């Protein structure tokens, strides 16, 4: 949120000390003085606005979210005394789920509904229960203070000490699970009615943190703090073993008491040793669930160290599309100003497809990002082959042209959308039995284990100048001597049950019910 609409005031304290009464009275007085007022109750008891509503209860945002996927402002708000717009965030059943995170989800929804832009309040009052073990109050005030505190705030997103990032599912209608022909997808993107699908069985897959780190490591002269438990920094050993990076290595105590102090310490230590031009702090599930206040620490240290210290808003769970992390990285880089040139996006050189007949009549399966897939489909066709199917990580509205191109190149082509999930591809390959697999190294290895001659190439390798010639050469070799895949397949006992191979590969993909 760039511009804050209205003055935001949070009133925070433990239960039973008169928060709701005080808040309601302030709201009523402001309304009586002619101001437009919203009161938002952030207490699992959900009775903050009862006084203003003359004793009536209001359905909470969280309950409504749980029950229906599309929530309208009318469903969750009511006009109370003096015209005050009343909303109850609600909370989870005690002992289940995370109260603080719940309030956050509610606040996110209010932003999505453009509550403040539409309603244009002069004042927004939050009535916040302060004895929840974790939650946004921790981010606002530090760990549990016993007395009521009045907190003038600058905006909803500030309250949680974080900036919001619109996840790919919402911004571009990104889809991470699908199996079928392409036209229905084109139609749903064109009509902007994308149905989200989820999996009832899943395998581990990259998240926004992994993707953000891939980008952040390419920035010269930057220091990186991975703010979380140490495992969230593991991938750094692959991406940048010798780089300037550290993990705050949060322990159990930090998950309860907050992690501002250890973050400070980590930033200062990294700065003293490496003197980076900018430090990025990558958030992880632990700090996201606790709403630990990264931004205040970052702002303070930016001043103290006189270099930009910039949070990268990741959490590992809000988006099922790993590329959301790429957006988080981009947002952080933009904030770092002219110090960072940004990652240089390579101009994709379109080289004419080289001539070959190496694939004469062969059925080829592709496991590539969709942009590379379009190029390779043409190559496969020109070498005499046909496409037996395509697996891609995700698709979103930005891929509409690619989808149309694919459909035009080979009508009826089957598209499989999955970040990882080799069990689905195992099922697909078992049915389709392609004669060649052409994909990223991570995907190609699974085909090889299934005994299918495989060619591995990254998107960069394919799209760079001369990439297609290289691909053809590798294809030729893979078909000329498949000894390794044959030997591999001989000793491999399939890891999946016979029952699974008999099932439709999209058996575990279901439409999401909120």
């Amino acid at each position, binding site marked *: 949120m760039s511009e804050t609409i209205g003055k935001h005031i949070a009133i925070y304290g433990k239960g039973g000390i008169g928060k709701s009464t005080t808040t309601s009275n302030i709201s009523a007085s402001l309304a009586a003085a002619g101001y437009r007022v919203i009161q938002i109750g952030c207490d699992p008891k959900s009775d903050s606005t009862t006084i203003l509503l003359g004793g009536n209860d209001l359905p909470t945002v969280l309950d409504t979210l749980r029950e229906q996927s599309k929530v309208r402002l009318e469903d969750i708000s009511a006009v109370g005394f003096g015209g005050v717009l009343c909303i109850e965030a609600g909370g989870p059943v005690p002992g289940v789920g995370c109260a603080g*995170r719940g309030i956050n989800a509610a606040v996110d929804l209010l932003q999505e509904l453009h509550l403040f832009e539409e309603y244009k309040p002069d004042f927004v009052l939050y009535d916040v229960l302060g004895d929840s073990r974790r939650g946004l109050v921790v981010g606002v005030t530090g760990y549990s203070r016993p007395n009521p505190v009045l907190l003038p705030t600058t905006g909803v997103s500030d309250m949680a000490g974080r900036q919001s990032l619109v996840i790919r599912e919402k911004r571009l209608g990104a889809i991470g699970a699908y199996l079928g022909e392409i036209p229905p997808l084109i139609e749903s993107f064109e009509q902007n009615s994308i149905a989200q699908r989820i999996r009832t069985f*899943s*395998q581990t897959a990259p998240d926004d*943190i992994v993707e953000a780190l891939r980008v952040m490591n390419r920035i010269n002269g930057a220091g990186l703090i991975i703010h979380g438990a140490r*495992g969230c920094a593991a991938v750094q050993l692959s991406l940048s073993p010798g780089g300037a990076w550290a*993990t705050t*290595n949060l*322990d159990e105590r930090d998950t309860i008491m907050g992690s501002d102090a250890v973050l400070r310490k980590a930033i200062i230590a990294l700065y003293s040793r490496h003197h980076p031009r900018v430090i990025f702090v990558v958030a992880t599930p632990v700090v996201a669930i606790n709403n630990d206040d990264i931004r205040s620490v970052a702002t303070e240290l930016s001043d103290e160290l006189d270099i930009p210290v910039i949070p990268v808003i990741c959490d590992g769970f809000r988006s099922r599309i790993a590329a959301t992390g790429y957006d988080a990285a981009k947002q952080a880089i933009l904030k770092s100003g002219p110090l960072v040139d940004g990652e240089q996006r390579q101009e994709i050189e379109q080289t004419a497809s080289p001539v070959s007949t190496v694939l004469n009549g062969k059925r080829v399966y592709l496991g590539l990002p969709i942009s590379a897939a379009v190029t390779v489909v043409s190559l496969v066709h020109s070498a005499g082959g046909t496409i037996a199917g395509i697996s891609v990580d995700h698709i979103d509205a930005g891929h509409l042209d690619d989808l149309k191109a694919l459909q035009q190149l080979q009508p009826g082509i089957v598209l499989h959308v999955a970040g990882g999930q*080799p069990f689905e591809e195992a099922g697909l390959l078992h049915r389709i039995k392609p004669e060649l697999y052409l994909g990223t190294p991570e995907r190609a*290895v699974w085909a090889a284990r299934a005994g299918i001659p495989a060619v591995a190439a990254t998107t960069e390798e394919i799209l760079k100048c001369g990439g297609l010639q290289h691909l053809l050469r590798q294809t030729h070799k893979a078909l000329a001597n498949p000894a390794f895949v044959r030997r591999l397949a001989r000793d491999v006992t399939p890891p999946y049950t016979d029952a699974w191979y008999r099932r439709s590969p999209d058996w575990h993909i279901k439409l999401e019910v909120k």
Partner: protein
Amino acid sequence: MGLPLEASRSGCALHGALYAALAVKGVVPIIHSTSGCGIQSCLGGTTCSGWSGTGLIGGSAIPSSNISEKQVVFGGTSRLREQIKNTVKVVSGDLYVVLSGCSTEMVGDDIPAMVREAREQGFPVINIATPGFRGSVYRGYELFLKGIISQLEPAVGSPVHPIPGLINILGIVPTQDVFWEGNLDEIASLLARIDLRANSLFGYGTTVEGLHDLRRAQLSLVFSPWGLDAARELEARFGIPWINLNFLPVGAEESARLFETVAEALILNLERINRVNDDLRKREGHFLNKLADAYYIQGWQLECAIVADSSTAPGIATFLAKTLGLLPSLVIITDNPADQNRLELAESVDKLLPGFGTRILFCEDQGEISDALLQRAPEIILGSSLEQDVAHRLHIPLVEISFPVTGQVELNKCHAGLRGALALLEDVGRAILLSQSGDIS
């Protein structure tokens, strides 16, 4: 409060438990956490362990509930129930182990209840709480073994009596010890020479049966502080005695010490032991003689620094100092062992070369490790890929003996026993030659 770590060389507890689970055929881990946890264990773990692949249910194939915001807000138990129910349908396995991550532990999901439910339906499922904030990979290995020992019930009617000559091997952490599979093999073949059978638990040829047999062994041998918990637990529950060898033996002398210790505990025929030891020493002597020319041509008598965890560093330091005549100036232990274990490790380092002033440092932070190395300026480093920069700056050879190893592919090499000592010598020689050819060009 957590201690910030620069370039941490160990992932989290979840990763350690995962590496252990994936090292036993038939064990299927089910991660209950966010989707990235398993991927991190692969990209930042197995890949950095000599480029070892992750097997058929490793890497991107690890079953994982991939919880999203909905589960964080409303709880993730029903998602876990669904994931367990479908995992047993899709992935063949003999034992399913639910490993929880930070997010689900913070949210407070009642994971044991879900697992109990699956067990009541007849599926072999257990759960181990392994959130990353509990500690490092080493802690995860401990938690895995503890979970197995306390939860794995023998099948009804299966034998429970002790198996004579069966020895539990504890403390060698899969993946985090880059040479774990080779090391376990070598310990097993050493024990086989005195007619004992190793229960290696992990690596080629092991199954869930090995985990069941933990309670049927005659003795447990512990090769690092990270095996002590399990050894004590096995003693308390099943009366199995244990010996703490502190670290992996390297070379004939340390292997002989292993034999003598075991022989004493099990009252074995000493004559037999002596014959085996004699053979080991003769073999070692033969190959050292083969090395001698190179030793003097290439200048092997170097001041060395060793950077590795507590199972690896002391054994290699001992072999280099006592057999090869190298001078250990600095030993850095990187796995943050408990205080009482530090004392024993420090003692073994003090004994390496009395009077030489070998310094021992317990440290996980790459910044401090680099500083200590630069300040001590050894003539050769035996450490990890993370020491490349320092070795380069000091213009000295680097032998990669500890995690992470990214500069070479490792499949079944070992650094334990006699076979490991010889492999180590070959690696040291290659590093010295490489650095000398660098000097010329």
